[in-house]
């Protein structure tokens, strides 16, 4: 991930940059320069739009910010005689402000709802531009938008201006990608829920992404207005949104170079297609369909694969494979033949082991209702520092619902949950995680498309302070944070015995290893209280006893554990206390031997044979 550029790509980059700088002197054709300028505008737009893709959001509203920037800049310069540099930044800021407002309203939505609400905003912006005649001059448009400066004659000054903007933007985005922020964004895209549980706020990073994207789009809009010198509501047309989205997706979403390539291809392609006259748009549509069919991840990744294959063929070397050589055996990493060695898991955490009598977490009169269903009703219990508390009960008794309520992933209808002295009710899941409460999920939850090692890096990274500026400037602190995360990841890999799988994609790990990795992710976020949701589900006896050892080891390091589990062997042997739920109500609480013989527990849950 954070590897420095290879020598080849450095040369390639330097070559591309000098070719771009020299373009006006090597090409006499003004039309190509003009297309290059337009490509530049679209590179800005596509790269900005791509920031949202990096956090897993597909927006259909990029033109709103582009158009707003263009209008702000055009109105300020033509109507109020504001000098261009001021108008330029005002355009960026206005778009950012709009991004903030719209982001706050929409970023809680997901999937198609988000896609279409952003489309709605863009259309509303267009209709305002069209109908607010007094301000925007409506469909008649704003004519005679001045050039940025008197000496902006011909295309060359515009070309260098946009080139500068593009280089700065790409450099900034590159720096961001390889920073704490970039890693957090990657975590969110891969698994937003899990990201929240290790202290990464999906909402805040999405908002950050929206602000950055709208700022860049606003600047691009301003540039457009002063380059075209005429502005009309067509700048807000849906067609343009499509063009931008096509550039990002067809270029290669969430890659740095994909949108750049996409922007160039899709600026040039419609011009090339002029050859076919009225067939132009029909063929464009057809090409778009074909591209989705045959290069669904984009041109850039396809080219990369091609390049890699050529490289291999020429040099005869194989690049390092990221997939494990075999499907993985369950005994690898764990002890073979059922004799698990002591598991040397060690966690470093800031909380010193505390006195057992101290109460860490209190749940009072907790109620969670879904519609008319009382999933959890008036449940009270507390967790003492350093203990292992198990919650058991039949399916649907409300165990996971309680974990979700504590970690604020799910709702609380009534009642109070407090951690030490802080009330958790009003917090968001990432804030709970930052209180030192970690968790695992019932269904395996990892960052599936990055390496095992990277999973742990992302998890360790979650708690780092985020400062955009520090990251972009690559301050000592941010460099140190990156190093720390790498070191911590390696340590956990070693301790969970996942070291041989460090480079494997998380999704390709055998199931048992995935469950261990989940635990590793939770540990990497350095919790003082760890909530485990059915960690033994689907593990075989040797694996379970291994898990048992791990849990005890973790507790010895001073981490308090709440365990939701069906495996009675595990529960009975590790728990200090057990809470039993049935139909959302607590029916028993006590030491394992008390619970085991409790009549109600036997009837509702354990059955006579156990």
């Amino acid at each position, binding site marked *: 991930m954070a590897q420095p550029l290879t020598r080849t790509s450095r040369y390639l980059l330097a070559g591309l940059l000098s070719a771009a700088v020299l373009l006006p002197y090597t090409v006499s054709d003004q039309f190509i320069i003009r297309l290059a300028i337009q490509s530049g505008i679209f590179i800005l737009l596509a790269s900005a739009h791509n920031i949202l893709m990096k956090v897993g959001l597909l927006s259909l509203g990029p033109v709103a910010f582009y158009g707003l920037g263009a209008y702000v800049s055009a109105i300020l310069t033509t109507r109020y005689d504001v000098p261009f540099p001021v108008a330029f930044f005002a355009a960026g800021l206005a778009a950012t402000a709009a991004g903030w407002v719209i982001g706050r309203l929409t970023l809680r939505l997901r999937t198609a*709802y988000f896609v279409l609400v952003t489309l709605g905003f863009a259309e509303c912006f267009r209709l305002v531009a069209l109908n607010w005649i007094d301000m925007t001059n409506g469909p008649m448009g704003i004519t005679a938008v001045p050039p940025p400066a008197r000496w902006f004659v011909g295309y060359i000054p515009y070309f260098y201006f946009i080139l500068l903007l593009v280089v700065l933007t790409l450099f900034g985005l590159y720096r961001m990608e390889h920073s704490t922020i970039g890693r957090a964004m990657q975590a969110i895209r891969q698994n937003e829920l899990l990201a929240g549980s290790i202290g990464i706020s999906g909402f805040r990073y999405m908002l950050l992404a929206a602000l950055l994207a709208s700022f860049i789009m606003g600047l691009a809009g301003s540039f457009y207005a002063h380059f075209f010198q005429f502005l009309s509501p067509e700048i807000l047309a849906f067609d343009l949104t499509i063009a931008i989205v096509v550039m990002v997706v067809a270029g290669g979403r969430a890659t740095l170079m994909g949108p750049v390539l996409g922007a160039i291809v899709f600026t040039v392609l419609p011009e090339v297609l002029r050859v076919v006259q009225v067939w132009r748009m029909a063929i464009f549509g057809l090409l778009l369909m074909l591209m989705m069919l045959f290069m669904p991840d984009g041109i850039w990744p396809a080219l990369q694969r091609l390049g890699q294959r050529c490289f291999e063929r020429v040099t005869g070397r194989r690049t390092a494979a990221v997939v494990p050589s075999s499907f993985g055996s369950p005994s690898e990493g764990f002890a073979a033949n059922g004799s698990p060695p002591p598991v040397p898991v060690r966690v470093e955490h800031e909380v010193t082991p505390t006195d057992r009598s101290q109460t860490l977490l209190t749940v009072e009169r907790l109620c969670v209702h879904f519609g008319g269903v009382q999933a959890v009703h008036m449940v009270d219990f507390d967790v003492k520092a350093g203990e292992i508390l198990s919650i058991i009960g039949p399916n649907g008794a409300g165990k996971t619902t309680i974990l979700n309520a504590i970690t604020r992933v799910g709702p609380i209808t009534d009642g109070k949950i407090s951690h030490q002295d802080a009330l958790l009710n009003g917090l968001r899941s990432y804030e709970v995680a930052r209180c030192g409460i970690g968790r695992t999920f019932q269904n395996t939850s990892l960052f599936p498309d990055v390496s095992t090692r990277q999973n742990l890096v992302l998890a360790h990274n979650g708690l780092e302070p985020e400062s955009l500026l520090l990251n972009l400037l690559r301050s000592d602190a941010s460099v140190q944070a990156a190093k720390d995360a790498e070191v911590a990841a390696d340590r956990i890999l070693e301790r969970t015995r996942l070291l041989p799988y460090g480079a494997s994609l998380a999704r390709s790990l055998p199931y048992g290893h995935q469950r261990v990795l989940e635990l590793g992710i939770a540990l990497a976020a350095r919790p003082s209280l760890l909530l485990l949701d059915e960690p033994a589900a689907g593990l075989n006896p040797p694996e379970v006893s291994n898990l048992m050892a791990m849990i005890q080891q973790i507790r010895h390091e001073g981490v308090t554990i709440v365990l939701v589990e069906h495996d009675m062997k595990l529960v009975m042997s590790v728990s200090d206390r057990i809470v039993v739920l049935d139909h959302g109500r607590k029916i028993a609480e006590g030491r394992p031997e008390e619970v085991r013989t409790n009549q109600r527990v036997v009837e509702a849950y354990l059955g006579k044979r156990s």
Partner: protein
Amino acid sequence: MVELVQHLLNGFLIGGIYALMGIGLTLIFGVMNVVNFAHGQFYMLGAFVVYTVFTLAGVPYLLALVVAAMAVGLLGVITERLLLRPIRDQPPDVPMLATIGLSIFLANMALIIWDPTPKDTGLPFPLVGVKVGPLTLTPMRLFVLVAAFVIIAGSHLFLQRSRMGKAIRATFQDREAAALMGVDVDVVNMVTFGWGAAMAALAGGLLAPIFQVFPTMGAIVTAKSFAVVIVGGLGSFPGAILAGLLLGIAESLGAGYVSSGYRDAIAFILIIVVLVVRPTGLLGHETHKLA
């Protein structure tokens, strides 16, 4: 007052068509998880088929509607098979962009096949208004409304009662489990996409005599259908009907009393307001529900 009632009536008439469009789209989204941007182009093609078959070839109007539904439905089936099935497992933006490509392709092919000149289909029913008290109703519009609701009710029955309908709903909820029950998921997808496309075509065919037929008529319809689907709640049939009527009436009142220029904003403002207040739409469910 009279105007208000007339606006409500007008809104109801156009709302029926919005509902019909929305249901086709919501069905496709629900089962296949595809945001179909070519929905308006299926509507456009339905209108063009009616123009070709009814106006040019002189086939009776009702038959022409059936032909339109079948032809466009078949196109939907082919689209699913050739375009959407190969990319079914890709992230959702891939099929979305593929349907955007399809919409551009279809609109521009219509431009080439039927030329850009707007077409008039002629009237199968009188368009001259019948005065009902101070209100005006036309037989043609009444027919459109009745037909829209017959088609909606028919689709609902089909989904609830028929074997295929149940298979569609099962696939919607759990594709793999449905396959293990013996449901041919590929067939379900083809039927669903074809059915949704046919409903859009019927809407186009129904409105063709009232309006004009031209290649770019679909774009705005796609947007309106999205509004209906989102406001009603993704995958919700009753939601789509409610939202369709709501949108029709809101637009009529808005265009009448507020501003014509902002009329098209009403659909989007409705989307924004509903989603900010109720993020799953009016009748939407946490888990999408097709009922």
